[in-house]
């Protein structure tokens, strides 16, 4: 504990309306302090925060992973056998065996992004692009034409030919 006791807020300040939540906090802390002092002989500091990686488990059935003890075989008790089957199926369900796959995951990903499926590929990107990029990207689409298209300006009709 710091040598001098922590600065404490006076009672008056705590009663003020806006200090409601801090008042609760301070009270709780005071209680904790008190209880810690009470039990300090038994639970000392080291025990509290020593993260020992031992877990004590006192039941055999959990340690040895025993199955439920109620079993019925060859139709002796149909209702129970039903239950057993459900349980078995559910256990099977949890550990579903991997279905054999023709295409492995990597090729799938590569193909997926390789041909840049138009609709999906840049959909998120579009949201954040400004109008300018949008125009450029659109015009960029026709970049396949010979020269990069200048920004269209109003062109005065040439006077001589009409």
């Amino acid at each position: 504990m710091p040598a001098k006791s922590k600065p404490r807020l006076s009672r008056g300040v705590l009663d003020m309306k806006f200090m409601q939540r801090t008042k609760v906090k301070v009270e709780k802390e005071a209680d904790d302090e008190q209880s810690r002092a009470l039990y300090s002989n038994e639970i000392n500091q080291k025990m509290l925060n020593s993260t020992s990686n031992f877990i004590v488990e006192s039941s055999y059935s959990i340690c040895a992973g025993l199955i439920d003890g109620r079993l019925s075989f060859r139709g002796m008790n149909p209702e129970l056998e039903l239950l057993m089957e459900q349980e078995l199926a559910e256990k099977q369900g949890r550990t579903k065996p991997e279905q054999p796959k023709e295409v492995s995951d990597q090729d799938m990903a590569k193909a997926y992004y390789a041909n840049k499926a138009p609709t999906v590929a840049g959909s998120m990107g579009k949201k954040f692009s400004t109008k300018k990029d949008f125009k450029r990207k659109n015009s960029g689409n026709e970049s396949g034409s010979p020269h990069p298209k200048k920004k269209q300006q109003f062109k005065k009709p040439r006077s001589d030919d009409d």
Partner: protein
Amino acid sequence: MSTTSTIVMPGERISAIEELAKSKRVILGPGLRRQDDTVVASKAGPLRHKEPSTFWVDNYQRRYIPARGDLVLGIVRSKAGDNYRVDIGAADTASISYLAFEAATKKNRPDLNPGDLIYARVLNASADIEPELVCVNSVGKRGKLGVLAEGFFFKCTLNLGRMLLRENCPVLAALTRELPYEIAVGVNGRIWLKAHSLRETIALANAIVALEQSGCAEIDKICDNLGDFLQA
């Protein structure tokens, strides 16, 4: 589940677990005790180890120590107020409230009278408090729990109960080949059996008890000649 079956005696430090514990979390089962980072055995018997890092001592025991989540077979001893006293072979009798049964309400209470057999799950149990049982699962359905009607009931050691309850235990498989039957094995070393006829039930019970008496080394031999047990 690799079983290192070295025998440990009480008071012995088990250094293997301590090294393992430095790296990752270790689960100490019954029979092992922790003395601030040394692991000491408190019971004598073979040390069992389950894959990730679970260790326990599989010692010979007849007295059941209740633990949370165990499925046990209890005999209803008496009715005290609104809960029943059930003897599960532990230090003191367990209690089960009349509401802990399927579709039990204040008005229609379960018809349970002293001497009945119930298959229940231990709700909570610790050294200081009396164990508490429950006969209904979280959804409120009875599932596999509840009162067991006729059939035959006998006591055996906890080891035998645990051996029968391992996954795909050869004994049960062998018995199934012989005849149809229904069995309820409690972790507290109690077994309830029901077969079509009385003679078969007796033969089944004898087969299981013989397994314990003769030691389980010759388990296949016993499984094979279960046939003659059943004829005897």
